[in-house]
């Protein structure tokens, strides 16, 4: 079942909170790619509309949702030396009170993505999220075939980098299946 907007906000805010609790930078790219992984690998029913761009999967719907969350003080933006990180906002307490069950149901999934993605650079995030995109679209293809698909849409990355990204996604899938 698809989540309500409040439930979606609760998951995004939990993601931000968990990242910051580990002192990890939580910028827009991390939120975009982490939500994509939550949705497509961990089956969290966020149902954001993602499309594949040359910089990896991206959802304008999620971007707008994040802006609404900022307007509603559910998350805030804090400038750092380069760029800025999201922080939990004043209204996180409201979310936690009213969507406690949703947060509890998906906490392990959020912890999984934070553990595997937080602290990574933009290019790494783009590669691995793109690898997941092609794996979800055609799981039967070999590592090399999926790596070739990545290189086709992202000519700025090497086939070795693409291969590593696909292998990592396959390891995640095995880890979750176990």
């Amino acid at each position, binding site marked *: 079942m698809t989540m309500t907007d*409040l439930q979606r906000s609760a998951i995004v805010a939990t993601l931000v909170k968990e990242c910051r609790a580990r002192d990890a930078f939580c*910028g*827009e*790219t991390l939120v975009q790619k982490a939500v994509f992984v939550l949705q497509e690998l961990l089956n969290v029913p966020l149902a954001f*509309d993602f*499309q*594949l*761009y*040359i*910089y990896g999967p*991206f959802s*304008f719907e999620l*971007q*707008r949702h994040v*802006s*609404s969350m*900022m*307007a*509603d*003080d*559910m998350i*805030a*933006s804090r*400038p750092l*030396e*380069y*760029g*800025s990180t999201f922080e939990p906002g*004043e*209204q996180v307490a*409201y979310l936690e009170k009213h969507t406690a069950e949703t947060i509890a149901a998906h906490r392990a999934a959020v912890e999984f993505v934070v553990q595997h993605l937080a602290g990574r650079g*933009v*290019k790494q995030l783009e590669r691995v999220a793109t690898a997941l995109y092609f794996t979800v679209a055609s799981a039967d293809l070999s590592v090399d075939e999926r790596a070739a698909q990545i290189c086709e*849409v992202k000519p700025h990355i090497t086939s070795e980098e693409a291969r590593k990204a696909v292998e990592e996604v396959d390891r995640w899938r095995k880890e979750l299946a176990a």
Partner: protein
Amino acid sequence: MPDVVAKHQHEIRDPIHNFVRVTADEVAAINSRPFQRLRNIHQLALTYLVYPGSCHRRFEHSLGVMELAGRVFDVITHERNRHPDVDLFPDSETLTAWRKVVRLAALFHDLGHLPFSHAAEEQLLPDGKHHEWLTVEVLRSDEMRQILKDMMPSPDPDLVAKIAIGPEKWGKWFGKATDFREWDLLMTDIVTGDAFGVDRIDYLLRDSHHAGVAYGRFDHYRLIDTLRILRHPVLERPMIGIEKGGIHAAEALQLARQFMFLQLYYHHVRIAYDIHLSEFMVQWLKRYPTDVEGHLRMTDNEVLSAMATAAMDKAAPGHEPARRIMQRGHFRRIYERNALDQRIHPNAVGRVAAALKVHFGQSAVRERMIPPKQQNIDFPILLDTGDISTSRSESTIYADFKPAAVGFVLVDPEKRKDVRAWLTTNKQTILSEQMELDL
């Protein structure tokens, strides 16, 4: 020999840019039926009922967007302005062809607008489509294909369409978002970009001028002169950024947009008229003609004429909203989103509207929630040292920017007094969830 030599460059007088300069090919595009139709589409729908000067049309806005697109293209591709870290620029012949594509994309970007612009597109177009979908359909029509084919060089209609509507909508309806490579993304950003898109630059300046609202003005000459293609140091990708000297002009643009949304675009009376207009169009039309010919026949003139008739005839579809528009009987603001109430309940507007509908009836209450229109943008800045930083690092305006949402509850003017009294007594109960509501 002819007495008069054909002109290759034409000038059109414009209150914002003084002159819009157009080539002979562009004159043919401007004279086309789909573009001439924009003379009859108000830029700001019924805003002229609140700000009487805002009667300008999509026609002159589109000319202005084309003029600015050419200026931005020339600045960011000029050899003197190229940054050594960006190695994307094609040869000069290809650049000339791209300049034409970008200017035409800018000129044509609004061809798909329904009558009164955005007022009823969500309700009238099928399957979540927006006016950009019709823009592409018009550009793919035989008439427009022929006009583009007759140009020298002749641009591909789909390339013009792609640059005009950007990757999100192109990817959703016509192709793939990955059809946009790095260069294509930069070209579409000239027209549609969040930070420095010329669509926004023109509409802020033009709407501000016509409405008589000074908040939309900023130093766009300085801004455009300092635009550069730079590699973003965090995102590691080429983007349209600025030289440090343009930062104040960029900040002024960001603030202008925020102020114009709050002061003009989301003025509560304008919102009330938008609601009535959309209700009228849905009741009168039922469904919008989405074939190109049907679309080209529909302008504000047809709607206004039908509205005037419906306002006089109680049996006519759309009589009630038409009457409210024509006789200034619009719904009145009774509640507005505010920070204090948001802290009590993040859906304060929705709860107030739901409670009033229960107590005073559905027909007496309307609500309109408008999510933030501005994203927390971040673009590269070329410092005097030659290093590249970011807008959020160099500017407190960008670093501290918080998107703003707007929301209103409006009521039938005849019930306003009773509603106000009831809401004063019951607001805290509604917001604190002591009142059961079906939301």
